[in-house]
Structures are given as C-alpha cells and as structure tokens.
C-alpha cells in the first residue's frame, strides 16, 4: 500500500488536486461494491485507506460518497470504521447523500456486538445534519439504556452532539434528565463522567433562556452531588478526575471542617504524575482556602514541592504550562518563595519564553537576604548570546534596584554594564539609569560621571537616546559638556527619525538653556527653528509652545520646564490588581498563560 500522501508530499495540503486519482478510485469502488468474491474486503481496505489518506491531506473526495456507502455493506469492522470516519467528515456538506447512510447506521445500532452498536451510534450522532435528527432520537434513547457501558458512554456524548445539532429535539426528548439519572446511578465511571461533561455544557448554554436549566446547573454544585463525585474520585480515569476536580473547585463548602475534609480527601492527588490532575487539585485547594489567610499560606507551602517537581519532570511544553502557574503564585506572594530563588535560575538551553518567566520571578522574590546572589546571577545572563534575554536581565537588575532600599551595590553593577561597550547593553542600561535617578536623585553624582563618558554616537535606540538626552538636560549643571553634546545633537536634527527623541531634545535644550544660558543659546535657537519646521505635529507644537513661553516670560518657562522635582516612590504597575485577581480566579486555564482575562 502506498503510505498516505507520499505522492503529495511536496504539495501544500491546502491545494486539492489528484482529480484523476479520485475518479480512478470511483471506478474501482464501483467494481467492488457488489462483489462477494473472496478477498474483496482486503481490496476494499486498500481503497478505503487511499480515500482516507486523500481526505487527510485535504483533497476533496466527497464525490465518492455514494460509492463509499455502497461498499459499506460488510462485516469487516476495520472497513466499517473507515467508512464511518469518511461519512462523518462529508455528511455535513452533503445532507442528501447523508440520508443514504442512515439506514445502515440504524441497522448497526441494533447489532448484537456492543462495539458495532457503539461505533454506529457515535457516527450517527456525528453526521451534523439537522434534518436527520429525527433518526437520532430513537437510537440515542435505547443507547442510554444499553446494558453495555461502552454504548452508554457513547450515547451520553451523543446526547450532547444532538444538542448542538438541534437543541430543541434534545430538550423535547427529555434527554438531560435521562443523563442526570444516569450520572447519579451508573456503575461505570466513564459513563458518569461523560454525563457530567454533557450536562455541564447543555445546562450552561440553556441557562440564559431557561430558569430550570440554571437551577439544574446550580444543583450540580450541591453538596450531595459533590460528595457523590468526591467519594468515588479514584474510580475515574485521570482525565475524568480533572473534570470532577474542576467541579469541586466551584463548590462553596458550608464551614471550615468541610473544607478540611475535602482537602484531606484530595491530599494524595498532589502526588499524581499527571500534571493536569495536580493543577486541578491545587486550584481546589487555593479556592477553598481563599478566606482563611493562614491555611491559604500553608497551601502555598504544601504545593510548592509538587509544582517544582512538575516543572522539572515533564516535557518542556508541560513544564512551561506549570511554570506559568508557579509564576502567578510567585507574583501574588513573593515572600513565600524568597528562599526558593535558585529554582528560578535560567538554564542555558531553555527557550526564551521560559527564561522570561523566570527572570520576572527572580525579580519578584528578591529581598534583603538574597538580592546579592540574585543580582550576581542576573549579571551572568547579561553576557548571554540571546540578546533579548540579556536585555531582560538588565531590566531585572534595574527593577530589583527600584524595589530595594540598599541599592548601592546594584547601581555599581549597572554602571559596569555601561563599560561592556555592547550597544544593546548600553541602550538598555541607560533607560534604567534614568528610571533609577528619578527614584534616587541622590545617586546622580555617581551615575552622571559614568553616563558622561558615553558617546552619544554609540547610542542609536530611540528609548535609550531619549533617556540619555533627558539626563543631559536634567543634569546639565553636573556635566560640563552637556550644552555641546546637545548642540551637536541638534545639528543632526534632520537625521533623527524618532519623534520621541526630538521631543526630548527640545525639552533638554530648554532645560540646559535655563541653567547655562550663554553656552546653550545657540543650540536653543537652532532647536526651536528646527522644531517649528518639523513635520511631526507634536514636535512642532512643543517647539511653538516653548517659543511663546520664552517670549512671554522666562521665569514662567523656568517654572514649567524646570520645576523642583519629587522623587518617584513607586512606578505604576502595568497590570492592575483587579486583573491579577481575576486571572487568579481562573487558575488552571489559558488566562494564566496569556496573562489576560479570557472568560467573561
């Protein structure tokens, strides 16, 4: 047999082709349809495989529908399955032809082999054709009562499929209450789990229009139902356990002893090798204890080790998902993780999205006792080949400096970065030094000495250039050649593409002028002239504003441009605490990875 798509390998899957092959297949299928010769099933298998492989790569083989259905009269289960797969894929687009399949699917739903019954029922419900729903209700009803658990399992999900095709037929047939009865009584755990999945989806969608549905949805969170699930949690597969845990996470216990009972019952789930189970359990623990500060903190201590184990044991992808959750917890309660900082050190072979999370965590947990070690480690990353990580590391060092009281040593390190003479290191550092000076003006002397040595020619990035220019204006009294550096920058006005830099230049020149008028007068004149002629509206407006201000009264200009400044105590956080809380509410979801609130 030719492996699928071998012949199409070089082609893009989106380009349907192979028209000739498809009509060949049609002829061959026709020949086999009525044949009862020995070996027919084997030849059919080969042909069916070809059809499925074309379907997989995106070639449209829907024209073979009637031939496929004709060939499906067989007892060969492999053939049947391929045929079901094909029919499920194309029925929606060919509702008339889909009708052809109803007959044999319904017959198979009554087969004596439970496997065939289950498969046929699953396919029947997967047709997604609205005018065929009348044929679904009967087989689904008997499927839910089948003595074989496989068939009931399929039927439970089948009800949900029916609901999506035609919600009214599903409700009219009273399937939700049948599911509910099954959920609370079936001996098979997977049947129970499927009923729960289906009911959660159906009732959530119905809740907006039906009060009964929203009551039923609430009832899923009632004490008896929750305990029914909790008491048999180990009967469920690890995936169904996640489903149950998710439900328990929404439950509100009546008192604290109930909370402890639930946590004791679920304690060993934290030792599960499946990270999905562990995270779902952690969510339950975190949410149950939200109002009990002490216990909540103990939960953090308890879940630390399992989380760290998951970060380092699974695949890289899973590790990232868990690390994102750990990141969320660290950001909420950095103090509780301050002694675990070594776990957040970056490894050289980690992808940059992992390193970024770790750098943020290192920044958050830095306190008086570990800052020295963390900053030393971060300085190692600055030499990293990965430029974006080097930048983030500098940023992290700067942020730690901004949140610490004893910044002495850190400022020294930052200034050392400037001596590395790597453009991107210099650029990133300049921006940070500017922020530091706004918070700790007392450091200006040390910083200015180093910044003064930087040639503005080596600074090209707009943000860094703007930072340098800001410092030249702000500390023009401390830097002897500030007016001349500014003057040369103004001379190159035309070559400066960034409006942000030009705006800063205007302000800096004016500040410098107000402090050292004779030396800056020429530069100011040139800057205002260039600003007035600037094509950028903001630059033009600011130049005009300064010009008129100076015309009106120089001392007012002084008050506007050079007012006495107060040190910035806290820089605004990029994310509000309300959003952070809402992301926390959605623990164990994509919201945590995207760091955005997704659910409504």
């Amino acid at each position, binding site marked *: 047999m030719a492996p699928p798509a071998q012949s199409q390998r070089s082609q893009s899957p989106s380009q349907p082709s192979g028209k000739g092959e498809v009509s060949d297949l049609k002829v061959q299928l026709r020949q086999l349809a009525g044949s009862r010769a020995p070996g027919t099933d084997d030849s059919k298998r080969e042909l069916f495989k070809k059809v499925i492989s074309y379907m997989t790569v995106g070639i449209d083989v829907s024209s073979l529908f009637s031939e496929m259905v004709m060939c499906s009269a067989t007892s060969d289960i492999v053939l049947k399955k391929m045929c079901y797969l094909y029919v499920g894929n194309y029925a929606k687009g060919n509702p008339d032809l889909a009708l052809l399949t109803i007959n044999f699917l319904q017959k198979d739903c009554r087969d004596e082999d439970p496997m065939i019954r289950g498969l046929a029922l699953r396919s029947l419900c997967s047709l997604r054709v609205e005018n065929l729903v009348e044929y679904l209700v009967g087989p689904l009803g008997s499927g839910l009562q089948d003595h074989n658990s496989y068939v009931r399992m399929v039927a439970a999900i089948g009800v949900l499929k029916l609901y999506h095709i035609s919600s009214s037929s599903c409700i009219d047939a009273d399937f939700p209450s049948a599911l509910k009865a099954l959920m609370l009584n079936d001996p098979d755990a997977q049947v129970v789990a499927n009923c729960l999945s289906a009911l959660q989806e159906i009732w959530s969608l119905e809740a907006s229009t039906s009060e009964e549905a929203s009551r039923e949805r609430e009832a899923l969170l009632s004490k008896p139902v929750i305990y029914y699930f909790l008491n048999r949690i180990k009967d469920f597969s690890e995936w169904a356990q996640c489903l149950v845990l998710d439900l328990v996470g929404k439950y509100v216990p009546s008192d604290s002893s109930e909370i402890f009972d639930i946590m004791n019952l679920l304690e060993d789930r934290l030792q599960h090798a499946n990270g999905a189970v562990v995270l779902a359990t952690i969510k339950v623990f975190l949410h149950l204890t939200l109002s009990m500060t002490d216990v909540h903190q103990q939960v953090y201590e308890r879940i630390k080790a399992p989380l760290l*184990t998951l970060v380092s044991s699974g695949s890289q992808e899973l590790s990232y998902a868990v690390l994102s959750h750990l990141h969320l917890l660290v950001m909420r309660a950095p103090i509780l993780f301050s002694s675990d900082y070594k776990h957040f050190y970056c490894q050289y072979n980690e992808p940059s999205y992992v390193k970024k999370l770790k750098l943020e965590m290192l920044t958050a947990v830095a306190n008086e006792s570990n800052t020295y070690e963390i900053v030393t480690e971060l300085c190692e990353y600055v030499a990293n080949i990965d430029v974006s990580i080097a930048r983030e590391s500098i940023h992290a060092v700067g942020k730690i400096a901004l949140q610490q009281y004893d910044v002495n040593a850190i400022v020294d390190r930052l200034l050392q970065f400037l001596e590395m003479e790597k453009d991107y290191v210099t650029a990133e550092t300049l921006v940070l030094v500017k922020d530091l000076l706004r918070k700790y003006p007392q450091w200006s002397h040390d910083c200015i000495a180093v910044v003064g040595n930087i040639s503005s020619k080596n600074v090209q990035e707009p943000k860094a250039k703007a930072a340098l220019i800001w410092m030249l204006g702000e500390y023009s009294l401390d830097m002897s050649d500030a007016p001349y550096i500014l003057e040369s920058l103004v001379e190159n006005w035309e070559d400066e593409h960034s409006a942000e830099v030009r705006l800063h230049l205007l302000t800096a020149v004016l500040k410098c002028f107000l402090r050292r008028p004779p030396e800056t007068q020429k530069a100011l004149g040139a800057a205002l002239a260039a600003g007035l002629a600037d094509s950028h509206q903001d630059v033009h407006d600011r130049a005009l504003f300064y010009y008129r201000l100076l015309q009106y009264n120089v001392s007012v200009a002084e008050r506007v441009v050079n007012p006495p400044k107060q040190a910035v105590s806290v820089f605004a956080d990029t994310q509000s605490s309300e959003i952070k809380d809402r992301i926390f509410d959605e623990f164990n979801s*994509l919201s945590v990875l995207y760091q955005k609130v*997704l659910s409504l």
Partner: protein
Amino acid sequence: MISQFFVLSQRGDNIVFRDYRGEVSKGSAEIFFRKVKFWKEDGEEEAPPVFNVDSVNYFHVKVAGLLFVATTRGNVSPSLVLELLQRIARVIKDYLGVLNEDSLRKNFVLVYELLDEVIDFGYVQTTSTEVLKSYVFNEPIMVDAARLPSLGAAAIFMQGTKKMPGTAVTKSVVANEPGGRKREEIFVDIIEKISVTFSSSGYILTSEIDGTIQMKSYLTGNPEIRLALNEDLSIGRGGRSIYDYTSSAGGGSVMLDDCNFHESVHLDSFDIDRTLNLVPPDGEFTVMNYRMTQEFRPPFRINALIEEAGPLKAEVILKIRADFSSTITANTVFVQMPVPAYTTRVSFELEPGAVGNTTDFKEANKRLEWGLKKIVGGSEHTLRAKLTFSQESHANITREAGPVSMTFTIPMYNASRLQVRYLQIAKKSKTYNPYRWVRYVTQANSYVARI
C-alpha cells in the same frame, strides 16, 4: 474540550487530522504551521507551546520530530491538553513500536482508530493502551527500527550495552514475535537528568537531579509487581522527623526533595519499607518522578581558561575530568563554548593519542565545539584552542567568552544513588520467570561551567 487534533510532519504536511467538534476551520493546520515556522514575537525565536490566533487556541508538543497539535476555542486547562498530547504520542508509540513520520504514515488508519476512542466530541475518554486494545482492530505495520535514528528516552540504552535486546524497546504491545509467542519481559529504566552550574572558581552554584522511573511491560495477564527502592530513602527536605534528618546526614542515604507517582502505584508499604506495589498497565509509563537537590558528586569536572596571548590572539584551555569509576564509560560527550564575537580563526590542538575526538569552530554563532565519542571513568581530557581576533579586545576577555556547556550520556550510572533493590513479579506458576531488565542512565540536562 478539544476541537481538533492533528499531527504535522516537519514540513507541515498533515499526517492525521481529526476534527471533533467542527468549530474551527479546516485550514487551522496551515495557520498553525505558518505561525510556528515564522514565529517572531517579542524577540522570541521559538513559538511557545500555546498561542492564540484569531480566538483559536493552538497547543502543540514536539515528539520524535513531529508536531502533535490540538485546537480549541474554550479557555481550557493548558496542562490537561499538553499532557494529553504527550499521552497520545505515547499510546501511538505503544502500538507502533517506533514513533516517527514513517511509522505514522504507514499506520495512519490505525491511528485514526485510536483517536476515535481516545477523544469523543472533544472530551477525553481513555488513554490507557490496555483499554484501547479492545477497541482497535488494525494490525500495526512495523517499520524497520534498526535503520532509524533512535529517539525517545529508551533509545539511549541502545548503544554501549551489549546485553540489551536492542529491538525490544521498539516492540509494539500488540504485535507478536515471529512464531506467535510473546516474550515475557519487563523493562525498568531509571533515567536521571542532571543540572549543575559551576562558578568560575569551580564551586558548585546549583545542582539538581530530575529522575524518572519508567516501566515498559510485556507481561501477559498483568501480574502484580513489587519494586523496592533504597531502604534509607527519605522524602521532603529536612526529613520528616529529627531521626530521619540525622540518618540522612550520615552520608549514605538518598534524600529526595519530592516525588510523584503513576495512578496504578500503591503506596501502602512505601512509608515502611520503600516498596512500590503496582499492577503495571500495558505499554510504557512513568512509575515515579523525583527531584533531588541534595549534594551529589558531579560526574564531570570542567576546567576552562581563556587568556590573551599577544595582540589579537588568545588561548583557550578546556579540561574535562571524569569523576566516576573506571568500569563506567560515558558516551556522546559534547562540549561547547562561546568565544568573543570578534574571533575570526581558531586552531585546535588535541592531546597526542586522542581518539574519537572532533573539534569545530562554528563561525556563525562564534562557538567552539568539542565532541568525544567515549570517556572512560577516571580519565582526563584536554583541548587547546588558539584564537585569532579581528580587533583588539579592550574589555575583560573572560566576560566575552563562555560559559562552557556540556552534554553527555552515562549508561549504568546514576548520580543520586537511588536504586531498585529488587523487582518482584507475582508468580503465576513455578516455571514462570520473565525477563527483567533494570537499567540506569544519566544524562546532562544543563551542565554549565562559568569562566
């Protein structure tokens, strides 16, 4: 719930594509592949395992050079989907013996059969190889395993250990040996990944062992198994009681920070005598994961030096010492070191008599590479490299080079000293004596020396 599942080859071809809910357009595979291939966001080189394009969430894991992808519109648990993708790959491997593009293409109908039973309308039904056996009717078509580059954790046992039947680990759980009889055997692999960071003065800054005990069972009738670990094993930093703590300080004991276990493991006697009881399910699975930050002896010592040697010149000396028994041999050792960006030429000098060494200067990313096929315990190896620069270095040259990183595999060695004391299989009859393979291996995860 999951909307679609598909597997893409490295070139982006659909090998299997299953749409479960019809909520996401069929073109999703192409959208996904383009996004991953040309990923460039926030300066990141590589697409994260989860991302969103036009309100469709794409999850992917890379296994054996293939992309296993799931899509959904819902705000689902990312760890659940990623675990699931990983598990689907493992189930497929259990069936096909070998998981790669070729085997998947040859067996795609079987894979569809599996996918139909694993997920229904986006909800996970089962990922148990054993349960799936009763639903799956296609016979796997075997690909020639010997020809293929080995992939996956178990593949590391193929070299260097003659005793191991090389094909056993690539055997399908459903296929029979020629002659119709199944060989009764069970594999227990203790795989440890170690991370060490040495400071420039050779002092250990951080170290960690991430271990896993993997099992692959081909026993019929699923007999119960007892797996005994070190008696003095303690779990949780600081021990559970003062007594634990003093006994572990004695030096001989193994102290794990934390561990977790497979669903099937019973821990009833674990606290008493450190034995795990389990009825192993068919196929490959992780019995236990563990993590250890207790001090251990690193298998290799790295000594790296870079010195200026006149204008526009410098010399690098790299020394590797194997700090383990001479009965053990490490293989596929690979050492890398970034050198100053203005390095233009490098000439290497190996010790006289060195065999199986390769050296290279990767001009594009300015890196020295040194490969050693084998390193016998107790031996020491040195590489000298002379660098030529295009410009004078004015900064501190050691800040422009390094760190040195190293990868290796050491079969029949484990740094944690965690051991399987015995592996007991419940006897069905007197003559029942299945083959048991207990194998150890240590690999470098992140093994770095700063200079």
